[in-house]
């Protein structure tokens, strides 16, 4: 009798050990942050924050903001989880499905609405929004309710290497420039034998909708239920982007479209003009301190149009530390520490209502012409946002790639793109 009881006890112990092992492998979750959960109040609260925008260069800047917040709020600790942009949406989606998402997480404008509509975000209506630019506050509402706070905005400008222009005796890019001027300069600056390229602009959805606007067209119709790019403006945009590949711009076989390829090309002084985001200012200044470079508003075809991106942070609907989460949200998006850090480190810009707060940013060099960042906002091409965003982007990217590889004409690719994207919008 005694013996069999011992055996049962042994089995129970083994079973518990195994279950414990398995449980040990699982992550903490929004409802159970990091295992044993402190509740809000005076007790210590640990809050998880997942983001992509600090990855690859701004990790220390985010940590500085976190430390300042923790010093001001002794009861709250922030556990930061930083994920590369390329993996972020899959990771967040899977985490939300499994109920293991962080208490607070970053969202791109394009993906915000699907999370808001799905009920994944806590309603934070009533939170103080006075400090933010009004248009950005409204961008993160759905049905009159606030579901996230704007965190940053950024845009894309034309970077150029002054040394390469000087070497060829060419005039620097000017505000009056159009695509034709850019092409002419790019051709003169390209020296394939020396590995020097005149231009670099990703052949992708994110550039394409903008080039359509720069030619006076639109990617989607006004109602947003059909494409509008299969016209002269769309054709001009597609030809402009794809025509660069292999002539003034490196091809995939040369390494284009691999991580950091364009950054390394520009900072090693082998790229004359580069269409990229203002978040690269700090990286370029740091990696190429000797190089002379500046930026300017992107040239247009028939008109100017610049891309504008915005990120936001929201609170998980399942988080059990809502009050602490909201405190962190407000601090992280609008505190003076955040504004100072973002400006001093040339990270994405804070979404402040009071633009005079950006003055400090405009005074930092290089680049000398930081005013281009604000000037770009005068004519903005907003990214079309649809429910099946990723499918749409993949189709556009694939079709543009067939044109740049010379396997299809721009006309055929646009027609095929339209035939595939239109059904996604119904």
């Amino acid at each position: 009798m005694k013996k069999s009881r011992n055996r049962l006890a042994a089995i129970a112990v083994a079973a518990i050990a195994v279950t414990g092992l398995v449980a040990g492998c699982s992550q903490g979750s929004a409802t159970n942050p990091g295992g044993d959960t402190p509740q809000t109040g005076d007790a210590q609260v640990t809050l998880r924050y997942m983001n992509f925008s600090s990855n690859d260069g701004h990790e220390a800047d985010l940590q500085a903001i976190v430390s300042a917040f923790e010093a001001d709020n002794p009861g709250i600790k922030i556990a930061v989880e930083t994920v590369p942009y390329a993996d972020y949406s899959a990771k967040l989606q899977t985490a939300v499905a499994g109920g293991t998402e962080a208490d607070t997480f970053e969202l791109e404008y394009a993906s915000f609405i699907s999370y808001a509509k799905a009920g994944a975000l806590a309603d934070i209506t009533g939170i103080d929004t006075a400090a933010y630019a009004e248009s950005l506050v409204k961008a993160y509402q759905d049905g009159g309710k606030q579901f996230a706070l704007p965190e940053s905005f950024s845009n894309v400008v034309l970077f150029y290497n002054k040394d390469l222009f000087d070497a060829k005796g060419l005039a620097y890019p000017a505000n009056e420039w159009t695509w034709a001027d850019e092409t002419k300069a790019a051709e003169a600056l390209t020296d394939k034998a020396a590995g020097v390229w005149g231009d670099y602009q990703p052949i992708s959805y994110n550039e394409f909708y903008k080039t359509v606007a720069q030619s006076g067209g639109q990617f989607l119709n006004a109602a947003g239920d059909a494409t509008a790019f299969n016209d002269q403006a769309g054709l001009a945009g597609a030809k402009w982007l794809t025509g660069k590949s292999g002539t003034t711009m490196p091809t995939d076989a040369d390494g284009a479209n691999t991580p950091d390829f364009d950054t390394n090309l520009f900072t090693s002084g082998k790229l004359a003009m580069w269409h990229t985001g203002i978040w690269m200012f700090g990286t370029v200044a740091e990696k190429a301190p000797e190089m002379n470079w500046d930026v300017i508003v992107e040239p247009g075809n028939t008109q100017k149009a610049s891309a504008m991106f915005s990120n936001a942070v929201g609170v998980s609907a399942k988080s059990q530390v809502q009050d602490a989460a909201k405190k962190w949200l407000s601090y992280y998006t609008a505190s003076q520490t955040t504004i100072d850090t973002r400006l001093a480190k040339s990270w994405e810009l804070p979404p402040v209502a009071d633009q005079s707060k950006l003055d400090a940013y405009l005074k930092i060099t290089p680049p000398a012409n930081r005013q281009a960042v604000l000037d770009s906002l005068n004519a903005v091409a907003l990214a079309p946002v649809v429910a099946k965003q990723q499918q749409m982007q993949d189709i556009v990217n694939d079709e543009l790639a067939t044109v740049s590889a010379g396997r299809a004409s721009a006309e055929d690719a646009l027609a095929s793109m339209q035939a595939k994207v239109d059904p996604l919008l119904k």
Partner: protein
Amino acid sequence: MSDAIVIGAARKARRRKMAAKNLGWVLVFLAPSAIPLLMFKIAPMLASAWVSLHEWNMISPMEWVGLGNYANLLTSENTWEVFGHTLLYILGYLPLVYAGGLLIAVALNQKLKARGFLRAAYFVPVVTSWVAVALVWQWLLNPSNGLVNHLLGLVGLPQPGWWTDPFWAIPSVILASAWKDLGFVMVILLAGLQAIPQEVQEAATVDGANPWRSFWHITFPLLSPSTFFVVVISLINGFQVFDQVYVMTGGGPSGASQVAVGRIYDLAFRYGEAGSASALSWILFAIILAVTAVQMYGQKKWVNYA
């Protein structure tokens, strides 16, 4: 009732009691593998069957669509495309990896110098991470500055665009895959070769068979159980090909090398269509099951168990 029956019944009862006593221990020893297997394999598989009957973006609540996902997938051109690519991959990969593995196994079955070292060397790629291997092959096959095209250029052969060319993207993946799995096939076939009794070979030699004839008529047929195992495993792996495609070509250019599992990944983790992804997984499962069943049945005709 005879004594024998009584003793027999007592024995049976005792055995039953023993079995009951041992059951606890059986469970204890099974638990470490059975519990993870249930949690991480069986349960998700069953769950995916349930998910496949719904529309679900993994954030919002599931919506019942019955067999709608299956109907959509089976009528979608894209599904046939990715299965076509998968089949193309298998058609190139299987003969290449088998022939290569056999060649090396036969060579390393001879009394060579440094045989042990060579056996280990050929097996190293098998235990190397796919990501590392794929990146190295991507570089080797780089159209403009890769080693392979450089060598082809030296001897004046045409230099394909490899993974940047829709026609050559799948062959690029096949080359890398065959190279990596060569060692695995070699080990299985080498074990098979060594299990063939020496006497049979000797008898053939005495009867005047040259090495070539003795290989084709003695060794190869007696190797058929190992061949069968290699073919079954390689086919299943072939249908499930993913890592190398994901890293080397990303399914491109423009979807030209997208395979079934790559499509499942895209549907679930990029497009937020977990229902369709689960349905496609089950379609793939059905195909693999059918192909394997046909092989199990067909083996009776060609596999010789000595």
